[in-house]
């Protein structure tokens, strides 16, 4: 817990700085937005008005956040990295999940026909999580076959019901 709150304070320090930068960038971009003088609009209705205000507010909030984290001693605890050095069970699962989900959404769906991408994704997900990342791995053959059947079944049901019953177009 102690470690967690330390990490949070450090994370806040960094995000505070990020928000300051982001806020300033937004302010700068909005300041440079066209004032649309050609159209003769009133100067207080420029498109950049609200983004400017928001950018300034964001930078200010980021400043407050950074200040608070600094006061809470974040800078003195910089020994020890921000990311956990030891690979916990949790971070492994998260990493695998990220690779799978991002791979599916960003790569597979574009590349392969939807049903194939989906079936593959489901199959790999189930197998990985049931065989490797769990404390009670199931017997190999049985798991593979079961996973295979389940992914194909779900893909069929989903594709069919969405396309035919609900008339939704699939990627």
């Amino acid at each position, binding site marked *: 817990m102690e470690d967690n709150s330390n990490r*949070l304070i450090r*994370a*806040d320090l960094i*995000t505070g700085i990020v*928000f300051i930068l982001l806020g300033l960038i*937004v302010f700068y971009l*909005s300041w440079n*937005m*066209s004032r*649309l003088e050609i*159209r003769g609009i*009133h*100067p*207080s*209705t420029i*498109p*950049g*008005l*609200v*983004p400017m205000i*928001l*950018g300034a*507010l*964001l930078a200010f*909030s980021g400043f*407050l*956040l950074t200040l*608070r984290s600094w006061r809470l001693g974040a800078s003195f605890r910089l020994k020890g990295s921000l990311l956990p050095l030891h690979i916990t*069970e*949790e*971070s492994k*699962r*998260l990493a695998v*999940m*990220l690779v*799978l*989900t*991002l791979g*599916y*959404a*960003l790569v597979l*769906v*574009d590349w392969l026909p939807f049903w194939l991408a*989906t079936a593959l994704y*489901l199959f790999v*997900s*189930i197998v990985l*999580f*049931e065989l490797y990342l*769990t404390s009670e791995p199931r017997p190999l053959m049985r798991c593979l076959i079961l996973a295979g059947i*389940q992914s194909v079944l*779900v893909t069929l049901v*989903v594709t069919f019901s*969405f396309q035919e019953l*609900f*008339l*939704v*177009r*699939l*990627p």
Partner: protein
Amino acid sequence: MFMIDELGMLAQGVGHFLNLTSLFNIAWATLLGIVIGMLPGLTATMGVALLVTLTYGMPGDQAILTLICMYVGAIYGGSRSAILLNIPGTPASAATSLDGYPLAQQGKAGYAMGLATTSSAIGTIIGIFFLAILAPALAEFAFNFGSYEFFWLAVFGVVISGRLTGANDPLKGYIAGILGLLVAMVGMESLHAYRRFDFGIPDLAGGIDIIPAMVGAFGFAEILTVMRRKLDAKVITSQGRTIPYFKDVWKYRRTAIRSGIIGTLVGIIPGVGEDIGSWTSYAAARRASKEKEKFGHGSYEGLTAAETGNSAVIPGALIPVLTLAIPGSTAAAVLIAAMFIHDIRPGPMLMIENPEFLYQVIAMLLFTTVAITIYGLSLTKLLVKVLSVPREKLMPVVYVLCVIGSFAISQQIFDVYVMVFFGLFGYVLREMKYPMAPIVLGIILGTLLDTNLRRGLALTGGDITPFFTRPVSLVLCLISVLAILLSVPAVNRLLLRGLRKVGLAQKQSSDAGV
């Protein structure tokens, strides 16, 4: 005044849905909602967001019907896993587990679930009552709202949501709100048709669509959180009587009514949702209770308060939705987006253009209340089986639905990227304890805020006085400023010191650092 007109319209609303298609939709949508609510990791907002896509092809009234059934079902469904697993199926049921799980451990799981069912039904009905009375009144009041009022309403919504949902850390709540507002700034702005922040990417010029963003922040982010945890809890089997004795329900009627009112009020406040409704009702019930010791150890009163409170939020949240197009909760925000998709325009004009709609919504709520009561009291054993589906199989399927859901509305792969981005973004922010509700409010209210500010300025030629002199604007402005000021610790300390001097606050024996 006998409100004959209104009763007539209500009867019409009910009659509108007394056909086979509607009843079928009510049946499956409510059941699906209960299942989604039960499964930890699937929330009401996620369920509603995903269902919007499914119902895209349906006629407007049927679509909204299914969404409301899903909403009510999911908020109710969370109580099941709260009672049986001590894991709330949705954040709204967190307070339910405090007394529900001990009851289950005492062998009274079935009874607890029955009590939760009746409490949810009662809560919804109390909320419906207020919806029926307040909505028309508020709509009439809001009819005179101009740009100034709507600007301050948007500000108020974001500020109050940030303040109340960022409970321990309002600063993070406000930052979340600002981030949401900034997201709304991307795309073509409505006053001069000027493209903002599109960086030359044509997809961005259309702005960021709210549904993929919500599916990402509430779907994908939730999936990541769930898959990361390692939990496998044992389900307590339920035995014994399910239907509660009337005397138990009657005994705590005051608690129920109080919780219902609190829940409705919490629902009306923008961006503050069922979880806060449930906690506030629970705390109030405990304070007023003659059986305080029982709370947390299997108190029927506590369970009643929690479940009545969270269910009353739903009709309450619909009040600002229908009259002002401002979401009372995050799921209500999705409902607003869905209404616009189906060409229903919520806001003060709704009561003029489409007055039956309010009563149709009330009818929808009534029907789904009946549905959850029937399902809740009868399908106990069957629904428990649902809880044994392992997450590893379920979460990837839900993710597939998220991908389909984000794509289906505008058939753009860009929306899938939006979903992924908001999922990652939402997950990181959540891990750092930023509340999600103000982000949603910011995205929904951003355009309202921006357009009305500039329109107001255009009307007055740059003069900002009307923003501060018109009565409603002034009130909203003062409340927002007060909310922000009260969240600054230094201000609170000064205030406390002042109050103590005047004798209004108690002196503390150890004044730590004041």
